């Protein structure tokens, strides 16, 4: 069994929200070239788990390790190596799509505007590059946040409901991006309600109340 020294491991994580025991001893693992599909009814802590894995939320018990080391002690290095796309596409309404990418991807790696335009091209929203994000539709905003994930070139993707607000073509695009990412040795942790028809090793994690 590949020990989790070259991947992500979640080890019996417990989280309470007030009196609600949201995550009850959740454990999971995902290695290079693999995808972890997290599913389960609403309110069972899927987003909470993603926030714990991203290092935003400190679990009361249990630890998360990346490449064998706890993410708490190596927080900034770990967070530099991941791309997080939350349920709501995080865009500034007053900035254009290109500016949004420039100011968020630019925090992680030096990237030219052309690279960012190519990423927007890849997710089919090149036309909106110079439009303020507030005028974009929900689907277009989702595609811009996907472009951000691509442009960051992170090895670990944490995607919360990437298929939300997307049409058939959009969903197809997400599946292609995931497969391409995992094929090049990347890792992904995806929260989604629907079945993922992907041609790569997919681990399942079912969260129930």
């Amino acid at each position, binding site marked *: 069994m590949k020990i989790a020294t070259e991947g992500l491991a979640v080890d019996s994580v417990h989280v*309470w*929200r*007030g009196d609600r*025991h949201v995550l009850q001893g959740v454990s999971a693992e995902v290695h290079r070239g693999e995808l972890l599909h997290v599913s389960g009814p609403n309110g069972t802590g899927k987003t909470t788990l993603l926030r714990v894995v991203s290092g935003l939320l400190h679990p009361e018990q249990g630890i998360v390790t990346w490449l064998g080391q706890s993410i708490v002690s190596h927080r900034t290095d770990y967070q530099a190596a991941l791309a997080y796309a939350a349920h709501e596409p995080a865009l500034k309404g007053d900035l254009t799509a290109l500016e949004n990418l420039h100011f968020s991807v630019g925090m992680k790696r030096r990237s030219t505007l052309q690279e960012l335009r190519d990423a927007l091209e890849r997710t089919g929203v090149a036309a909106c590059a110079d439009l303020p994000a507030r005028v974009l539709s929900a689907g277009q905003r989702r595609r811009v946040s996907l472009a951000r994930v691509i442009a960051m070139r992170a090895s670990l993707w944490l995607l919360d409901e990437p298929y939300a607000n997307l049409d058939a073509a959009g969903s197809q695009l997400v599946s292609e991006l995931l497969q391409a990412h995992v094929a090049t040795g990347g890792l992904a942790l995806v929260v989604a309600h629907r079945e993922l028809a992907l041609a790569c090793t997919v681990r399942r994690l079912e969260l129930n109340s």
Partner: protein
Amino acid sequence: MWTWFYKLASPPYVYRVAAALMPWFLGLAAVTIGYGLIGGLVFAPPDYQQGDAFRIIYVHVPSAILSVTVYTIMAVASAIALIWRIKVGHAVAAASAPIGASLTLLALVTGSMWGKPMWGTYWAWDPRLTSELILLFLYVGVMSLRSAFEDPARGDRAAALLAVVGVVNVPIVHFSVVWWNSLHQGSTLVTLEGPKMQSSMLWPLLSMLLGFTLFYGAVLCIRVQGEVLQRERQSAWVREAIKS
């Protein structure tokens, strides 16, 4: 040596210790406050300047000193809770806040009552009283921040950080207020050349100070039990604790 410190971190242990110590604190507090009041109001001679009005210091000085000490204890407990994630620290901080705030209010009221005969008005922006007033604002800030969050755990951590930031500012506030207005007569107890008071005046005051401190300990023991219970998940020991 460290074992008692680690044991202090476990809620059931703190709950039991608090329940056991409370009667001792309360009893000793009653004795010392009783002696201090009798000594201060009956046996101590009137002050040559202020006459019998000076007897107000037997409640004003202990509550003023306690108000700052309790804030510091709250800040230290908060820092411990934040740094080492010990929930009991939050319980002690949450328990200390109302006690400290009430003592600050007591210091303010008695201070202004004491000021009336001396300055002719209840409030003359005296630096010591102004610092007490700002300390009361700091207490209110910490308590209202703690209760503003739905999730009590986050409320604890936010209030803890504010308490630590506040305690750093208490000396700054005091210095700036004193710099701003050095009207206040030097404090009779803590002065450079030592207390100007005769021993028959001084001992009751020290006894009142000890009494107030012990009283704080007693009330803290009661409140901490409640705060620990609140923060404790439905763990086994809570069932026995409630029965008693």
